[in-house]
Every structure is written in structure tokens, then in C-alpha cells.
């Protein structure tokens, strides 16, 4: 009964080999032609698509609902909860035309599935505007949902470049703004730092295969090469929840880089650093990571292994930082210094509230809010916030970007002065 099938088995083996070859060729084909990224601004067609070419009024009875789409559970909750909390404290002691702000939190899990689901629920909850989503993947997937509903949303932390250059004839989504510094800006600073300050000529790149990780690592490679550096080995991608980095580490050792660049999140950076530092040869290999990794949980999880790591954090502390810090400590017992993107969330919320104050019209004890005017006011935002001056470019991006660099020293993040290690 068994040997009879032998013939067909060989045929299948060959078919399989052929398929594998096709896939291999398909996968290894040279890609990344930069799509140029012409920085187009909002268009009339864009406003029309969002239904914001004319007044779109919603009436609010009672408190004004503003949505927050953030990761409240899951691997990235350590990032998401402080963001949500920080946004909420922006409304402390503030009323708009006598009405308080009602925050509606939804869990976007930092995922492309959670994003639209949370956006959907926020739209159903009839929020007038929203903070979030916090991750690039989730944001990308929910742009259209917010846009269809005409609801303006400001992400405190979605940093993938193409979010504001989507491939559609109407141009960028007019309902989307963001406060954080873009991946490209962050990667440029990191590349400079690695090449100029750390004097690294060869870099090994490891990245989370999600939107954020791919984008950040690609930008870093681009800028590092521009600086004159070389990317050694094959950039190693991994999926979230990966724990086994031993094979990547062997590749790092073989590639003999001067620096390791990591674009990902702390949940994977923790075991990665622990396994990296367990290897005698790589004990002191410089390690540069992105903002997704700079988190308190990295310090508590990786402990000694995190020592000496260089992490970047886009943004700066603005004049309102102390106000935010105090409010955050009072209400949520949190430490604003450790809340990554907390200041950005606070500023995003402030931008919405400030705009609301200008556009809300009182009528029979209720508030009438024109989504079109709200959107316009948010676009015109210009104020000193907790993360520096908040202004938006014509495509929804933050204007004027600053990136700070930190080093882990003695179990704490210490900010580096420019040009110092």
C-alpha cells in the first residue's frame, strides 16, 4: 500500500521544490524603490470625501464626548495606558461653554484589527473628535472610518511616514493629524548619532515586521548609508511575541557590526537584550533602539541587560510640561517623565479642547458643534504645549521636529547632550 505512491511523491517533491524556488526568487527580488513621498497637502476632494466640505453639525447634550483609541490591554498596554491617562488630564478643571469633557476610551490593541474596531465603537459613541489610534498599523486601518464619519482624530504616537501620504486620489485624509515626530526624523537623528558620535561604521538592523518597525528600520538604513555607514548582514525581522533571538544573535556575531540598531517594542527588546548580553562577545556591543523600546518596562524586565542601551525619543519638553506632569501625577499617580508619548497625548487633547472652545455654539442648553469648523480650528492650532510648540503642516503632520536621545545608566534613562555618548 505504501510503495505504490512513490511515483506521485517524487512528482510532488519536485513541484514543491519548484514552488519554493519561485517564492525564494519572489521574496529576494530587490525592492524598496522610494515612493518619492511628495508632500501633498489636504485637497478639496479630501474634504469632500470626509463630508467636511460643508457644515456637519452634531448636537451634544450634557458632557462633550471625546474618544481615545489606545492599547489598554495586551503587549503594548504599558505604552497605551499612560497615553490614555495623559490625554485625559488635559481636561482637568476645564469646561467648554460650561460643559465638561467626557472621555470615551476604546482598546485598539495597537493592532490593525483593533484599530478599526475601536474606531467603529467611537463613531457609534458619537464622539466629536478623538485621540489616537496610537500605533501606525491601527491608525492606517482606521483612517477611513474616522474620515467617513467626519471625525477629526489626532494620533499622539503613530509615526509611520506614509500615514499622511496615502495612495488615494483625494490626497491625505483631512481628518487625521498627529503630534509625534515622524520615524524618518527619529531615524535620521539615530543614524547621525550612531555614525558620528558612536563612530560606528557597520550596523546590524533588527526590526519588528509590523508597520512601525519596518518603516523605522528602513529609514535608519537609508540615513545610515547616507552618512557613509554600511549595513552588514541581512536585516532581521521578527514577529511580535518572538522570544527566541538566538539565531539572529548568531547572525549578528557573524556580521561583526559596530552597532546594533533595533526598531521594535520593549516587549521583544527585553528578551532580545537579555539574550544578547548573555553572549560574552556581545556584552558591550553598542545598542541603539527606537521610541517603541524606551519604556519603563524595559528597565524592570531586562534590568542589567538594558544597561548602556541608547534609546531615542522624539519630541522635547515644552513650557506646559510641568503643568501636565503635575496633573498626571495628581490624577493617575503617574510619572510624566516615564510616560512615552504622554506629553504628545496631552497636547493632542489640548488641541482638540482649544478648538472646541472656539467652535462650540450654545443652543437651548445644548451644544452645537460643527465638525467642519472643529477640523479647521484644529488645523490652525498653534500653542506652546507639553511637547514643545504644537503646529500642524498642511498634510496633518507636526511642524518642527526635535528628537532626544537617552542612555540607560544605573537602571534609569539619562538624557544625552548633543554629541555626547
Amino acid at each position, binding site marked *: 500500500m505504501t510503495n505504490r505512491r512513490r511515483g506521485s*511523491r517524487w512528482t510532488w517533491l519536485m513541484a*514543491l521544490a519548484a514552488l519554493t524556488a519561485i517564492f525564494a526568487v*519572489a521574496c529576494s527580488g530587490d525592492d524598496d524603490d522610494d515612493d518619492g513621498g511628495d508632500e501633498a497637502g489636504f485637497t478639496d476632494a479630501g474634504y469632500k470625501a470626509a463630508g467636511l466640505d460643508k457644515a456637519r453639525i452634531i448636537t451634544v447634550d450634557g458632557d462633550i464626548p471625546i474618544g481615545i483609541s489606545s492599547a489598554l490591554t495586551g503587549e503594548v498596554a504599558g505604552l497605551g495606558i499612560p497615553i490614555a491617562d495623559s490625554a485625559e488630564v488635559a481636561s482637568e478643571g476645564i469646561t467648554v461653554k460650561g460643559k465638561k469633557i467626557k472621555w470615551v476610551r476604546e482598546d485598539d490593541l495597537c493592532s*490593525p484589527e483593533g484599530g478599526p474596531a475601536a474606531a467603529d465603537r467611537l463613531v457609534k459613541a458619537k464622539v466629536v473628535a478623538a485621540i489616537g489610534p496610537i500605533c501606525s498599523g491601527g491608525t492606517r*486601518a482606521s483612517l477611513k472610518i474616522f474620515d467617513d464619519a467626519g471625525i477629526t482624530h489626532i494620533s499622539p504616537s503613530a509615526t509611520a511616514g506614509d500615514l499622511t501620504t496615502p495612495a488615494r486620489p483625494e490626497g491625505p485624509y483631512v481628518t487625521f493629524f498627529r503630534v509625534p515626530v515622524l520615524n524618518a526624523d527619529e531615524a535620521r537623528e539615530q543614524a547621525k548619532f550612531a555614525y558620528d558620535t558612536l563612530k560606528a561604521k557597520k550596523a546590524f538592523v533588527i526590526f519588528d515586521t509590523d508597520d512601525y518597525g*519596518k518603516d523605522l528600520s528602513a529609514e535608519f538604513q537609508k540615513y545610515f548609508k547616507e552618512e557613509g555607514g554600511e549595513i552588514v548582514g541581512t536585516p532581521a525581522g521578527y514577529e511580535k511575541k518572538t522570544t527566541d533571538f538566538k539565531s539572529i544573535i548568531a547572525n549578528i556575531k557573524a556580521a561583526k557590526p559596530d552597532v546594533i540598531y533595533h526598531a521594535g517594542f520593549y516587549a521583544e527588546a527585553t528578551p532580545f537584550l537579555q539574550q544578547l548580553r548573555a553572549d560574552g562577545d556581545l556584552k558591550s556591543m553598542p545598542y541603539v533602539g527606537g521610541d517603541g523600546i524606551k519604556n519603563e518596562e524595559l528597565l524592570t524586565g531586562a534590568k542589567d541587560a538594558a544597561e548602556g542601551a541608547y534609546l531615542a525619543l522624539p519630541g522635547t519638553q515644552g513650557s506646559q510640561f510641568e503643568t501636565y506632569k503635575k496633573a498626571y501625577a495628581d490624577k493617575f499617580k503617574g510619572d510624566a517623565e516615564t510616560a512615552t508619548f504622554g506629553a504628545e497625548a496631552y497636547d493632542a487633547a489640548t488641541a482638540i479642547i482649544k478648538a472646541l472652545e472656539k467652535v462650540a455654539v450654545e443652543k437651548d442648553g445644548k451644544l452645537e458643534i460643527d465638525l467642519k469648523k472643529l477640523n479647521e480650528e484644529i488645523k490652525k492650532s498653534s500653542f506652546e504645549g507639553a511637547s514643545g510648540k504644537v503646529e500642524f503642516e498642511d498634510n496633518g503632520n507636526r511642524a518642527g521636529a526635535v528628537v532626544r536621545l537617552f542612555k540607560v545608566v544605573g537602571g534609569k534613562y539619562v538624557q544625552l547632550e548633543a554629541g555626547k555618548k
Partner: protein
Amino acid sequence: MPSIRSQLQQVPEWAHALTFLVVGLLGWYFLDDTWVRVLFLVTLYATLGMGLNVVVGLAGLLDLGFVAFFATGAYVVAIWGAPISPSVEGVVNYWVLLPMAVFIGAGVGMLLGLPVLPLRGDYLAIVTLGFGEIIRILALNMDDYTRGSSGIFALAKPDYGAGKIDHVGDFLIMILIAAMVVWFVTSRLRDSKVGRAWEAIREDEDVAQGMGINTTRYKLMAFAIGASIGALGGAIYAPFVDFVAPAQFGLIVSINVLALVIIGGMGNTSGVVVGSALLIGVPELLQFEETANLLAKFGWLRDGLNTVIDGFNAISFADLGKLPPSEEWGDKLALYRFIVFGALLVLVMVLRPSGLFPSRRRELEFQAEEPEPAGIA
């Protein structure tokens, strides 16, 4: 004991289908979008269930990688139907893509099926599980075609002449039609010569082959038909969520579909619908505000349980967290729905190993596990 169950079995199956259709249409007409979305998902999974039922219930092939075909259908529609997709210029009309997805699904089914079909049950299960993962990893890594984890979005919507299918309700109608077609197709197949061949293979593969049935051919047929139905589901799901990415095609989809087929009662189409309502509908309902409001009334229960937890914390090293206020139970239940799901699977299996609504034959199979008539050594 003329139970409700056995009485239900007397009702012809087309009546079940009709009832389901009417319920769906009523829901479409009267309910708001949130509910319609749940109805869509229930119907979608019921359709997928009918597809898997052909493979598992009729032909007896345990497939743990059904998601592979679901993903295939979704990606066909996404790659050729979205302006953003990197490998294909332009957009193909959805009504061309839909049959294309079904055919490619069948093709993938056969391609995956041929090398593994000689394998026995449990081996087949683990290999198909592997295939499910491989398809997901392929989708994740072939950025040039699938955009990797970024996924493909902004799909061209199906056009039905008078407008575009763009609203939850429209998609519900679409999936209801698909479900009815699949229902018709699978029940016709089951009652035909082909269905009889599948059943014979399930009962005793060697003997079936000895009786002149080309078992590989019919197993492949079952695989291809199941796969094409899975792809059909994916092709309708893709424009509905308007976003196709590898993370949507995890093992949990396969498990969900298999579980609803088995919990519904294998080989029984009506059971599949009930299973889908239970396993897909109920967890969705848990996320509703109404559910949360209802649960909020159980504050007293929370206080009682918290006292117990306090006591436990006092006498042990453990530091168990307190239960949250009952107002948050709705959210928590939504969060814990997989825990509930797992427990439910075990419970239903232990109490009703042949499913809630087993088909006549499956029930027979279960009743007499003590084999062989007397007189044989």
C-alpha cells in the same frame, strides 16, 4: 423521549434554511448596524462552517488549517481589487474577482491537499495546521505582493448596478445569499453520489477503495469544495472589513470554524448555524453596552467574591487582584471572551460529545462505539 431536538430533525432542512434567511432579513430590516455586523459575522462563519463541514463532517478529513483558504479568498480580492496593492496595476471588477477567488481557493485546496491526503486523521490535522501557519507567514513576508503586516486596504467595493455595496447591511444581504447558495450546494452534494462516496470514505477508507471509489479523487474533491467555500467567505469578508493583513488569519480562525462545526453537530448544516451563533455571536454580544448594563446590576456578587479573595490573599503568598466594579464586567467579559470560549468548548464536548445537533448518522456512530456484531473474534 421525543425531545425538541428529535422533533427538529423531522423538519425538512430547507425549512431550517428558510427560517435562517427570514431571521437574517428581519435583522437586516429592523436592527441597527452594530447588530447587523454581528449577524454578518455569524452568517459568514456559518458559511465557512458549511465549507469545513464538507471536509470534516462528510469526508471525515480533519483539517486544522481552514484559515489558509479563507486567507486565499481575501487576498485574491485584495491584491487584484485594491489600488494600493503593490504587484497589480489597476483594479479588477469585484464580480470577476469573486469567482476567481473561489477557483483559486479550490486550486490551493487541491495543491495543499494532494501531498497530504494519504495521511491518517491526526497527522492530517497537524500538517494542515502547519499549512495554515505557512500561508500566514507567506502573507507576512511577501511584501511585494501582500504589503506584509501593513496589509492591503481601501478595496474597490462591489458594484451592483444601482450603487456600491458599501454598508454593513448590504454585506449582510450578500453573505446571506452566499450562505443560501452554499447551503444548497452542500446539501445537494451530500445527497448525491459524491456525498455517498465521501461517507463511505469516512466510514472505512480501505473498503471504499475496494468498492471502486477513487479515494484520492474524492478526498481531493472534498478538500477543493471546502477550500472554495472558505475562499468565498474570504472574498466577501475582505471588502467588508476593507482591510486584509496576515494578523487576521491566525490559527484562531481555523479553531473557531472547526469548533462551531463540531459543537453544532458534525455533518449537520443547521447545527453549523447554531454553532456559529453560539461561538461567534455570543462573544460579540458580550462587547455590547446593553450586556454591560445588565451585568452592572451584579454589584453584590462582586463584593462577596472580593471578600473571598481577600481571605485567600491573607492566608497565601498569592496576591490575587480584586474583581473590578460590576460596571466594568461587560468590558472584562469581552476581554476574557477567549477564556469563556475555551471553557465552553470543553463543556460542550464533555456534555455532548457528538455536538448539540448531531446529524442522524453521527448520532448513530456515537451510540454504538462497542464494535462488531456478535459472533466474530
